[in-house]
């Protein structure tokens, strides 16, 4: 299984190493550096790199490469999934998982890694158990620790590992009992030149923030559970109940967690809430190109489209862009040729537009590739698939919790071809 782990930053320095079996020299990472050099972009580094004696499996998160060294057969996804779980845990503990955060908390990081793997096999990866073993550093606790000399390591032995609900801490107590659920849907779409949808699918998640005392047993039911035919659950969800009644029944972990994620595939019709009118053209022989872009709402069910951000990678031949937006601000980076336009909110009465010209290298021929336009936006209070939560009930505890549900639709990988 996983032999060693190296953390490598963007400039190619190994800033942390951890070995679970005998020590593997860090020179093994040279193969990794070679691969990084060969790849033009950081995300093009192959996730699995074979070397004569080992195999390196890496993931890239927030400009840090997590390179795991393995020596024998192991499912690659097993390692990749675990590495992502490590990053998630760090994020959970330190807020971010950057090089600086890891370096500042190197002891906690080491303690965490020690608990998460034993001899290369995952031991405790549930955040609730880990938090029982090692308390996350907070400013208050750091101050207290330095004064009193107490530690981050839990004094009590963690009993969570032994329980039948390993994802939940025992002895949870809150004065305000609350359970919030966020239904967030992302639209992945490719829109072709003429504005028709080539493919569109919805990727939804229900993220929960549950702060309830004791051992609550929750059930969540939907108005239209038929929509959810392709789902994946947090381990706390009782699968049989879902199969039989289409009701989510679970003893929730404490704190933030992802209850379920679902996928509404391209076979269903997906409402596209925004349209883009564009006219990007280059004329043969001239050093100027025209650029026109107009955005407008469609099928938004009366909700406002907010935080709209348009970005586009212009052809390499473009030297500069001279544009004027009707609202918001735009930037053009002449080195990376990345155009981005921060639109803000779309006002249906006055549609935002970006017009102007692009200057090309003189004498260069007209670029034959067309840029694609990437769109980001948010719509509050709307789940575009139409999913609706019916009710949330709690059993097993006496108090009355405060419950809340929020819906939001976002653009995922939303692309318009020109």
């Amino acid at each position, binding site marked *: 299984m996983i032999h060693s782990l190296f953390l490598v930053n963007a400039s190619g320095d190994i800033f942390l190493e951890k070995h679970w079996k005998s020590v593997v020299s860090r020179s093994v990472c040279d193969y990794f550096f070679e691969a990084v050099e060969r790849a033009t972009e950081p995300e093009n580094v192959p996730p699995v790199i074979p070397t004569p004696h080992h195999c390196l499996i890496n993931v890239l998160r927030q400009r840090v490469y997590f390179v795991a060294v393995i020596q024998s057969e192991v*499912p690659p996804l097993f390692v990749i999934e675990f590495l992502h779980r490590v990053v998630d845990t760090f994020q959970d503990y330190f807020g971010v998982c950057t090089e600086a955060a890891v370096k500042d908390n190197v002891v906690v990081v080491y303690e965490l890694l020690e608990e998460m793997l034993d001899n290369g096999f995952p031991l405790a990866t549930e955040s609730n158990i880990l938090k029982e073993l090692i308390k996350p550093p907070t400013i208050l606790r750091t101050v207290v620790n330095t004064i009193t000399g107490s530690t981050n390591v839990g004094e009590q032995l963690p009993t969570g590992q032994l329980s039948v609900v390993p994802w939940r801490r025992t002895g949870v107590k809150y004065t305000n009992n609350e359970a919030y659920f966020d239904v967030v849907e992302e639209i992945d779409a490719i829109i072709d030149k003429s504005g028709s949808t080539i493919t569109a699918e919805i990727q939804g998640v229900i993220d929960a923030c549950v702060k309830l005392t004791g051992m609550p047993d929750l059930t969540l039911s939907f108005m239209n559970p038929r929509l959810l035919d392709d789902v994946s659950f947090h381990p706390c969800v009782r699968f049989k109940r879902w199969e039989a009644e289409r009701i989510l029944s679970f003893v929730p972990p404490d704190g933030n967690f992802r209850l379920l994620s679902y996928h509404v595939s391209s076979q269903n019709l997906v409402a596209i809430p925004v349209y883009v009118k564009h006219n990007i053209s280059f004329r043969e022989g001239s050093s100027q190109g025209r650029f026109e872009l107009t955005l407008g709402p469609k099928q938004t069910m009366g909700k406002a489209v907010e935080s709209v951000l348009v970005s586009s990678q212009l052809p390499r031949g473009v030297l500069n862009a001279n544009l004027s937006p009707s609202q918001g601000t735009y930037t053009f980076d002449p080195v990376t040729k990345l155009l981005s336009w921060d639109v803000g909110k779309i006002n249906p009465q006055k549609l935002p537009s970006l017009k102007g010209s692009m200057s090309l290298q003189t004498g260069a021929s007209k670029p034959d590739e067309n840029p694609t336009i990437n769109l980001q936006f948010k719509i509050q209070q709307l789940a575009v698939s139409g999913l609706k939560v019916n009710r949330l009930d709690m059993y097993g505890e006496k108090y009355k919790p405060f419950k809340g549900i929020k819906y939001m639709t976002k653009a995922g990988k939303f692309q318009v071809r020109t």
Partner: protein
Amino acid sequence: MIHLIMDTFLRYLKEREQEQLVKILSFMFYIFRHDDLKEMLDSNKDSLKLEAMKRIVAMIARGKNTSDLFPAVVKNVACKNIEVKKLVYVYLVRYAEEQQDLALLSISTFQRGLKDPNQLIRASALRVLSSIRVTIIVPIMMLAIKEAASDMSPYVRKTAAHAIPKLHSLDPEQKDQLIEVIEKLLADKTTLVAGSVVMAFEEVCPDRIDLIHKNYRKLCNLLIDVEEWGQVVIINMLTRYARTQFLNPNINESLLEDSSEKAFYASDDEEDEDKKAEAAALVKRKPYVMDPDHRLLLRNTKPLLQSRNAAVVMAVAQLYFHLAPKAEVGIIAKALVRLMRSHSEVQYVVLQNVATMTIKRRGMFEPYLKSFYIRSTDPTQIKILKLEVLTNLANETNISTILREFQTYIKSMDKDFVAASIQAIGRCATNIGEVRDTCLNGLVQLLSNRDELVVAESVVVIKKLLQMQPEQHSDIIKHMAKLIDNIQVPMARASILWLIGEYCEHVPKIAPDVLRKMAKTFTNEEDIVKLQIINLAAKLYLTNSKQTKLLTQYVLNLAKYDQNYDIRDRARFIRQLIVPTDKSGALSKYAKKLFLALKPAPVLESPFKDRDHFQLGSLSHLLNAKAGGYQELPEWPESAPDPSVRNVEVKDSVCARRTVLTGPEGAGVLLLQTTRGILISLFRQMTHELLHHSHSEQSSGTEDRKRGRKAVKNQKSSSESESESESSESEDESEEESEEESESDTNIRKKKTIAPSGSIKMYELLHRITGEGLAVEYCFSRQPFSPDPNMVAVQIQFTNNTNSETKNLHIEEPRLQSGMRIREFAEIGLQPSESVTVVMGIDFCDSTQAANFQLCTHTRKFFVSIQPPVGELMTPVFLTENDFKKEQGKRMSAHPRFSTPSCSIRVTATANLSRVPCGSDKECRFAGKTVSSGCLVLVTVTTKEGGRAQLTVNCEKMVIGTMLVKDIMQALSQ
């Protein structure tokens, strides 16, 4: 101070020496700093120690060597402060290998820890001890592992399972002993242990498939509750297991496929014979029936496709791909497509596997075609993999949409991707004949593209396409001949030259001219181009020697003095072959045949073809090379091995013949819930005694017994085939062994059991009036239901109040909650005013849901239901006071309540528990476990002053715990 001295020194030194001095000084500083740490470690203050350890760990993390601190650190291994201790462990495990002698100092601490009453301390001691890679302590480790493997805490047993591969890698000679431990742990029933022990199995003895037989069904049933990482390992192992034990579910289809494939290659006369043989084989082969165990595996893994863990989903997907009948494989597509939304690394691995799957099972992913469309923001490696999948999915019906999509890809800014797209178009064109011309035209248009890479790639692909039908495309060849002036990419130039040479008869005028141009630039060309120039020259010489003789000579002379020996060799070889001299042998006669033979068109194949001989989802599959420790996926066996090896030995069905034991102290079952090892040995002993006993008692020997056992098995298997859910039944080998000495007797169910004494409450199932004279009452006899220990025995008493005989009394149509099972009693008949008692078993799955069924006589049917009070869902367990306290410590959900003074009789009347001997008279303790899943239930009633009492129920199942509290409270307050 130091700085001042240094500065003065440095000023007088030359640059080189300066560097060295800095090195020496920094080294001294390094040692000095370590001295500082040593001092801190030696201090009495925990905070200083902690600070020192933190700094040391930070150094280890950066990869600095701190091994010189070993003695100072190891001293603190017994430190009271938990964090210091933990950090010392980290240090110890890191450096023990280098400092073996000193590491031994710490061992005694861990040995002490192994004996600690707290399971978590035991576990952590074992964990660190086994991580210390020092060969001297191998025997100590072995002992520790063996002991921990029979620890009563599943968490410690899990740690033991983790320790097995560690010891194995340290000293492979311990393998045999370790296999014994693995065998023992494989039999463990807790989900906590299952994943870890299978991991150990995979690392130590993956070939000992025989160890799995007996545990197969159990593993299948536990799977859904095992933690996610364990699930991956178990599923992968079970895939291999299933390949050795079951028959290929697609056997008949694959035969058909084979025959069609053979027909394609085989010559005509062979074909007939083949067909006859195959037809015979088809007839001979029995219709395929899936082994119920095979079905069990498929059924129990299916829900895991919904896991949030991509590795689990992939594991299930590969299991279905390798094991499921063709019609069922389709379900994995949706889940795999869902994974594509995950991180790009996950996407990369999933796409690799999808690419392999699409070659064999194209139809599966066709509905999801659009999910593989490429976005400009995808990383190049993902784009290329998606392209691969799209190409594999192309067929006559969807090719037009795919080609339209490809057209947009060609305009992408990512040139590597454009090149791959052009190749993909080429592959579509070769595979699907109808679009070949369209593709070719499209590619020819690309030849005028401004980007040279695009043009070059198109040339290479066009060359391959033209080979299929050169006659019709001489104009394209001419067009390409013109391109040679402009294209610089060597591969493309070489391709064009080859084309012209190969089809020089179609372009008789242009070909010599091209050769002329190439002869001019010969010396500046790349090697592959030079070789093709020689080729072209040779071919032209053979077909049109008049025009090209001199040119060929010239080219060959140039090649003779080339730097590259390949080119020199080729030139020499060709000269001998084509230019007739006196010395040239017989071969030159055949030169034309050699060079201008008809060449078969190339087959453009997916690089993922034939990758499926590696287990999908494995590292080896991804690398397309065998990784260390990879276990081959075996071929399906010709005929299935004996399926009975998986049968778990069922104890002889013992039925109630003796008086029902009642009262609080009359614990019906004695169970020693100590370590499993003891339990097993005890259990063996008991069976032994039993055998002995029966031997002397009855004349029938052990053979009779065996026959009886077989009968039970048969009965079982038949019932299994009846209802699907029953297959899990035999899995739970009875852990508890009843004291009962009574013999197996299948007819016994008819016999009357003695009516229960008054303390057992009778419930009414059917009233005399509604039952038209038939009155039925039932009670929970609190007897173990021997045919299946997971069932609650329900004693039913029928009384016939009519004047006529009631015949064929039996049960029909049970409507049960999922997981619940009923074992019916055999049909009975009742004479007028006779009353008969029968026993049936119901597995309530530890819930108080009612079991509904129909009670049928020869004339009527009655709908009835049995709802168990929670107290009847358990069976007593015998525990000592100490065990009780230990177990209580482990179970968290306590429900303290206050109530009136207690009385043990009332408790035992409410719940089927046994009293635990207890020193204090203020406390009453009771222990039991749930019938279905064997969860311990512990009840404590403490009398307080003022006539109040506190009731505590400890149980892992919260629902049961809460309900039990309610019931006992009610009983006590009456």
